[in-house]
């Protein structure tokens, strides 16, 4: 059976691939949405922090013989810690100013980080071996699904839903949301708002690093891996609504699917389809699909 000239088997395979790519978009846009939604910072360094997560995993493996599973825990902690340092030393001074200053700072940071890593590691990229437990795959009939890619979908869904739950449904999350709306009042109740903000930024950065560790076995670990992805992720966040956690998750997976379909029917446009959608969404709903007008 064929749909628009493409056999259904091939189509389902492409949709599944699209879903896998969507998991990366969702993880990364989640971190961005958390940082922007709660802190009003446009974190352009997100792509560089994703790249640092992947390099952290590479260095942990090659210098300290620490494998993939421990890296999933350690790399986000290490990179998250650098995020905390950045926030304390630099970003916290910019909260009183226009959004633009935060953007400029993080953009500059991204360029510096990328340049440093490229100077040290070169731009061809480095190989990172797939963990043994996840090699191989299973034949689903309509395509061969590598186990690792299945793991990516499952893990990112778990992390995304977990984060959404914490922010929207728990007491800690409610403190955070309240602190964004009215920091002075929340602080008057005895909650340490500056520390919460710092830790939230660190958490968003850690999410980016986690995506980086998960990407290391399937994409080359290279200094430019973040730059290529970050533009698309920003488009995803804008479409989903800049402050909406659920919007980022749903849009991430959804756009992955749409990109997957484009690659089947008109592959040359697969790089641009997300931006075309972003333009259309902004024309019709300027706050994004799930965003609220502020």
């Amino acid at each position, binding site marked *: 059976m064929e749909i628009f000239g493409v056999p259904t088997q091939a189509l389902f395979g492409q949709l599944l691939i699209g879903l896998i*790519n969507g998991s990366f978009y969702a993880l990364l846009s989640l971190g961005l949405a958390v940082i922007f939604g709660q802190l009003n910072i446009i974190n352009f360094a997100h792509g560089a922090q994703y790249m640092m997560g992947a390099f952290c995993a590479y260095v942990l493996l090659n210098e300290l013989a620490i494998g993939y599973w421990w890296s999933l825990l350690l790399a986000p902690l290490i990179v998250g810690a650098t995020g905390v340092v950045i926030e304390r030393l630099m970003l916290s001074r910019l909260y009183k100013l226009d959004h633009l200053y935060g953007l400029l700072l993080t953009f500059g940071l991204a360029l510096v980080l990328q340049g440093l890593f490229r100077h040290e590691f070169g731009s061809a*990229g*480095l190989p990172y071996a797939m963990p043994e437990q996840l090699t191989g795959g299973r034949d689903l009939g309509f395509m061969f699904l590598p186990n690792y890619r299945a793991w990516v979908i499952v893990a990112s869904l778990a992390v995304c839903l977990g984060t959404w739950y914490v922010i929207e449904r728990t007491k800690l999350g409610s403190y955070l949301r309240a602190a964004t709306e009215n920091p002075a009042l929340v602080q008057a109740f005895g909650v340490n708002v500056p520390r919460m903000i710092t830790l939230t930024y660190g958490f968003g950065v850690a999410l980016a690093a986690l995506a980086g560790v998960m990407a290391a076995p399937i*994409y080359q670990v*290279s200094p*430019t891996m973040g730059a290529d*992805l970050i533009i698309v992720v920003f488009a995803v966040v804008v479409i989903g609504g800049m402050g909406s956690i659920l919007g980022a998750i749903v849009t991430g997976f959804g756009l992955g699917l749409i990109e997957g379909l484009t690659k089947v029917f008109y*592959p040359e446009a697969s790089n641009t389809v997300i931006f075309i959608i972003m333009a259309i969404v902004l024309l019709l709903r300027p706050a994004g699909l799930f965003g609220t007008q502020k």
Partner: protein
Amino acid sequence: MKRRWISMLAGAAFALGAGAAGAQISDGVIKIGVLNDMSGLYADLSGPGSVVAARLAVEDFGAARKGMKVEVVSADHQNKPDVGSSIARRWYDVDKVDVIVDVPTSSVALAINEITRQMGRAFLASGPATSDLTGKACSPNTIHWTYDTWMLANGTGSAIVRTGGDTWFFLTADYAFGHALERDTEAVVLKNGGRVLGKVRHPFPGTDFSSFLLQAQASKAKVIGLANAGGDTINSIKQAAEFGIVRGGQSLAGLLVFLTDVRALGLPTAQGLIFTETFYWDLNDQTRAFTKRFSEQAPRNIYPSMIHAGVYSAVLHYLKAIEAIKTDDGTKVIEQMKKMPTDDPLFGKGTVRADGRKIHPAYLVEVKKPAESKGPWDLHKIRATIPADQAFRPLAEGGCPLVK
């Protein structure tokens, strides 16, 4: 009155002197501009290494001894034709650069080819692949060094078809280079009795090739031809391994693979890959000696790719040509370079044809298995040598207007 006569005579003498100076080096300096990708997916196979290669060539030529002033400058074209064009114009107009070298991205190279022709300078294309540079876009101001898509297609393509890989599916980078490589390889496959079952074009540069590889898998072609280079090829091969493409019985043909790509992939993933190149660091004592000097100065001590070797060879021959005719006028130097046979430690003896194609032998290469490799750069083994007169497209078939 007498003073007027003297000043008129002096003026005439100066004018005559200035006329003679027109046949000399412009501004007294030979300025070489190395233009390539310094920071993106092609930065390791060209990039700062090409600047090192150019400087080594200037050193080996002995410019200082011969009283010739040579300067090497460099810039990053970021793989974008508009950026490359504006750098070239500024170099030619303002900075008085005499020759542009390298330019590994075919779309940028075609633009530089045009600008160089318009401004009468010289372009030594060591980096790009498109065989159009010696075909319909050929120019009296350009020499295409190192390699081209026809040579790659002929070397790798016919070797694979003759060993049984007669059905192909192409994964092509969607820009000038990918299109040229796909076109030339398809012609070779068809000529040798094979069939092309499908093609897909991916955006350049790409990151995720899983969806295109899936289409290649579904086509059931025996060979998946990767008409891309650098980071794109590396990612395609890695992801193909993940999807069990080679295990499922299909084979990958890396149509353009460099030493630095194999190193980045690692031998366990890259072993068995077959491709064609025109230089390998371990060929003989001379290439090894050059490699030692190059790697001491190159970033992260990398070993030279064939593009780096091409930059060295081209700059050396260029300087020899200037020494012979005593001028750095672009068109004249290129003409002289075609008249003189070439000889350098890296490519041996060769020639430059009327259409601007540099001729030298090519090598069919296979990537070693991990057990066969005795060092971090001991990566290739030579399967066959293609003699110089068979490696490149015959002069009459290119459609170059200079050849009549």
